[in-house]
C-alpha cells in the first residue's frame, strides 16, 4: 500500500506541476499579447505626425527672425544721410557755380547714394534672403535634426517594440522549451519510475524465487538426510542381504561365463557336416568330471541324420575338457550333467 501510494504520488505531482506550468505560460502569453498589438500599430502613426508638425510650425518662426535682422541695417544708414546734407549746404554758400556741379555732384552723389542705397538695399535684400535662406536651412536642419531625432526615436521605439516582440517570442520559446523540457523530464521521470518499479518487482520475484529454491534445497537436504538416516538404519540388514546377493550373483556370473566359454569351445570344435539339410537338430546329454573332462556324450534326441548326430557328439568330445567354473563345488553342482542343443538353423 505504501509503495502504491508512492507509485501514484510522484506522477500526480509531476502532472500537476506540468499543468500548472502550462497554465502559467498561457497566462504570461495572454499578458504579453495587448502590448504587442500597441507596439505594432504605434510606430507608423507617430512617424507621420512628427514629420507634419515640424514642417508646419518651425518655418514660421524662422521667417519672423529674419524680418528683424533686415530692419536694423536700415536704421544705421539714416545717420550717414544727415551728414551729407550739412556738407551740401556749406558747399552752396562757398560756391554758387559749383551749384550745378554740386547739384550734379549731388545728383551724382544722390545717384551714387541711390546706387549705394540700391546696392545696400540689394545687399540687405540679399542678406535678408541669405538670412532667410540660412534661417530656412537652419530650420530645415533643425527640422531634419528633429526628424532625425524623431526618426531615431521611432527607430528606438520600433527596435524597442521589436526587442519586446523578440523578447516575448524568446520568452515564449523559452517557456515552450522549458515546458517541453519539463514534459520530457516528467516523461523520463515517469519512465524511470516505471523501470524502477519493474526492477523492484523483478528483484522481488528473484528474491522470492531464491527463497523458494533455498527452501526446496533445504527440504531436499532434510529429505536426503531422512532417507540417509533410514538407509543407515537398514544398513545391517542390507549388508547381510547384499552379501548373500553378491555371493549368488558371483555364482550366477561364474555359471554364465562358463556356459558362454563352453558354448564357444564346442562351436569351434563342431565341423558342420556339408550334407546337413535344413532343420536338423539334436540334443546331447553330457556328464563331466569336476575339471570339465567329458565322461560321456550321448545323443538323447537324434536329428535323424547319423552324420549330423556324430558331428555333434564329436564336437563335444573334441572340446573336452570343457571350461567349467574354477570353483569345483560350483562346477560339480552346476556342470556335472547338462545338455547341448545343436541347432544351426537358429543362427540363420
Amino acid at each position, binding site marked *: 500500500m505504501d509503495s502504491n501510494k508512492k507509485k501514484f504520488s510522484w506522477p500526480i505531482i509531476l502532472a500537476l506541476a506540468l499543468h500548472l506550468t502550462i497554465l502559467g505560460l498561457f497566462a504570461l502569453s495572454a499578458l504579453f499579447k495587448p502590448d504587442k498589438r500597441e507596439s505594432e500599430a504605434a510606430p507608423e502613426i507617430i512617424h507621420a505626425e512628427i514629420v507634419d508638425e515640424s514642417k508646419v510650425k518651425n518655418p514660421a518662426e524662422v521667417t519672423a527672425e529674419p524680418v528683424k535682422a533686415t530692419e536694423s541695417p536700415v536704421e544705421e544708414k539714416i545717420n550717414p544721410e544727415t551728414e551729407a546734407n550739412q556738407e551740401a549746404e556749406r558747399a552752396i554758400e562757398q560756391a554758387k557755380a559749383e551749384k550745378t556741379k554740386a547739384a550734379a555732384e549731388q545728383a551724382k552723389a544722390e545717384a551714387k547714394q541711390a546706387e549705394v542705397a540700391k546696392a545696400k538695399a540689394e545687399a540687405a535684400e540679399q542678406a535678408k534672403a541669405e538670412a532667410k535662406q540660412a534661417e530656412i536651412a537652419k530650420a530645415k536642419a533643425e527640422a531634419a535634426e528633429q526628424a532625425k531625432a524623431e526618426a531615431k526615436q521611432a527607430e528606438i521605439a520600433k527596435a524597442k517594440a521589436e526587442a519586446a516582440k523578440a523578447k516575448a517570442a524568446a520568452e515564449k520559446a523559452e517557456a515552450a522549451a522549458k515546458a517541453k523540457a519539463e514534459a520530457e523530464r516528467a516523461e523520463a521521470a515517469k519512465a524511470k519510475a516505471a523501470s524502477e518499479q519493474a526492477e523492484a518487482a523483478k528483484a522481488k520475484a528473484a528474491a522470492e524465487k531464491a527463497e523458494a529454491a533455498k527452501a526446496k534445497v533445504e527440504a531436499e537436504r532434510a529429505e536426503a538426510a531422512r532417507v540417509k538416516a533410514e538407509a543407515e538404519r537398514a544398513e545391517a540388514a542390507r549388508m547381510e542381504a547384499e552379501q*548373500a546377493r553378491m555371493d549368488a550373483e558371483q555364482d550366477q556370473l561364474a555359471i554364465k561365463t562358463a556356459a558362454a566359454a563352453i558354448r564357444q569351445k564346442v562351436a569351434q570344435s563342431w*565341423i558342420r*557336416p556339408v550334407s546337413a539339410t535344413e532343420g536338423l537338430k539334436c540334443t546331447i546329454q553330457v556328464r563331466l568330471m569336476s575339471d570339465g573332462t567329458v565322461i560321456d556324450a550321448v545323443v538323447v534326441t537324434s536329428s535323424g541324420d547319423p552324420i549330423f548326430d556324430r558331428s555333434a557328439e564329436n564336437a563335444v568330445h573334441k572340446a573336452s575338457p570343457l571350461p567349467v567354473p574354477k570353483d569345483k563345488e560350483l562346477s560339480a553342482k*552346476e556342470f556335472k*550333467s547338462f545338455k547341448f542343443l545343436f541347432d544351426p538353423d537358429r543362427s540363420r
Partner: protein
Amino acid sequence: MSFFRKILLIGLVSFYVPSSYAEMTIEITEGIESALPISIVPFGMQGASGVPVDVSFVVDADLGRSGYFKTLDKQSMPAKPSTAEAVQFKDWQAIGQNYLVIGQVTEDHGQYNVQFQLFDVYKGEQIMGYRMTSSAGDLRRTAHHISDLIFEKLTGKKGVFSGRIAYITSSRQGKQSTSKLQVSDADGFNAQTIASSVEPLMSPAWSPDGRKIAYVSFEKKTAAIYIQTLATGERARVAEFPGINGAPSWSPDGAKLALTLSKDGSPDIYVLNLVTRSLTKLTKSFSIDTEPTWSPDGSHIVFTSDRGGKPQLYIMSSQGGEETRLTFSGNYNARASFSPDGKSIAMVHGNGSDYRIAVMDMATKSVNVITDGRSDESPSFAPNGSMILYASRKGNAGYLSAVSLDGKMQQKLVFDSNEIREPAWSP
C-alpha cells in the same frame, strides 16, 4: 520403508535363481565349415612285398583331393598302428584328428586281401570296417572303392572316386594329327583309348548306365554319331544325315538321344528314339540350336541358341513346344549340364573375352561364376553333384579340373596329353 522392502526382495530373488533344479541346456548354433581332419595311416603289409599299388596312399590322395577332408601327412602321425589294439586314441585326440583309418594288405596266392577300419577318434570307437579281395590290377580300383565308402560314411554323399571320365585328346606327329576318345579313372590314372581317328572326334556322352558312350566322329570326313559299348568295343552309327550331326545327349532312361542336325538347313534339336529309330524335330528356328541336355527327370531339354543374337540357354519340354530363354546375364551362355538333382545347371559363361564355368540356380535363376580361367569349357557334373569337371588351358597346355559348386575347392587333374577337351564324368 518401501526401500527396505525392495532390498529384501532383490535378495530373495537372487537367492532363488541359482537354486533352480532344471538342468542346463547350452545351445550350439554356430559351427565351422572346414575340412574334416582325418588320418590315413599307411596300411600294414603283412607278408606282402612289392604290392603294385599303395592303397592307403591312393585313399589319402582321393580324400584329400575332394576338399572335404584334411588328411594328416605321415611325418606328423604320433604312431602308425595297423591293428585296432595298437590304436591309442588319446594320441590322435591330442593332435585334433577326428577320424582315423588303419588297414592291412595281405597277399594270398597272387590275390590281395585288403582290410581297413575307420575310427571315431573322440568316441574311441570303430565306425566302419571292411575286408575285400582284389587282383593286382584292381588294387587301384579297390583303393578308390575304399575312398568312396569312407567319403559316404562321413559326409553322407556318395563318393565319386570310383567313377571314370571320358575325354578327347589330340596329338600331332608331323602333319598327322590324331584325335582320341579316352576313358580314365576319376584321378586321371588308368587312361584307356576307346576310339582313335586322324579326323576329329567330338562330344563324348555317357549312357545313363555307364556302359556306352555316344560321340561324334568325322572319320568319314563328314560328321556322324556313333554309340560304342565300352566292355566290347562294339559300336553303331546312329546318325549320318547331311550336314551337322552333333552334340548327342542321352535321355535319363537311356532310350533316346537328343542331337543337333542341320539336314533341313539351320541346325535344330532332334530326338532320336534308339529303339524305334524314329526321329522327332523339336526346334524349328532359322538360328543355330544346339547342345541339348536332358533334365534328370527327362521332362525338359535345355539347349543353346543364338536366336537372340548371342548364344544363350533356352528350355523346352522334351516333347517339344514352347521354348523359354533361361539366361540373361553375360553375352555368352552355352553348353548346359544339369546337376544330378536337377536343381542347377552348369554352363560356359562368357563375359568379354573370358569364358568361365558358372552355375545357375534353377529356382532363382541366379548365376554364380565359379572358375577364374580365360577359356574354361565343357562343364560336367560329378554323379554326386558335389563337383563339376571342366576343361581349361593355361598357355599351350590344356588340362582338366574339378571344382566344387561354390567354387571354393578346386583340383587339377594331370594327364599326359597337352591337348585335352570335352570331359564327361561317368554316371
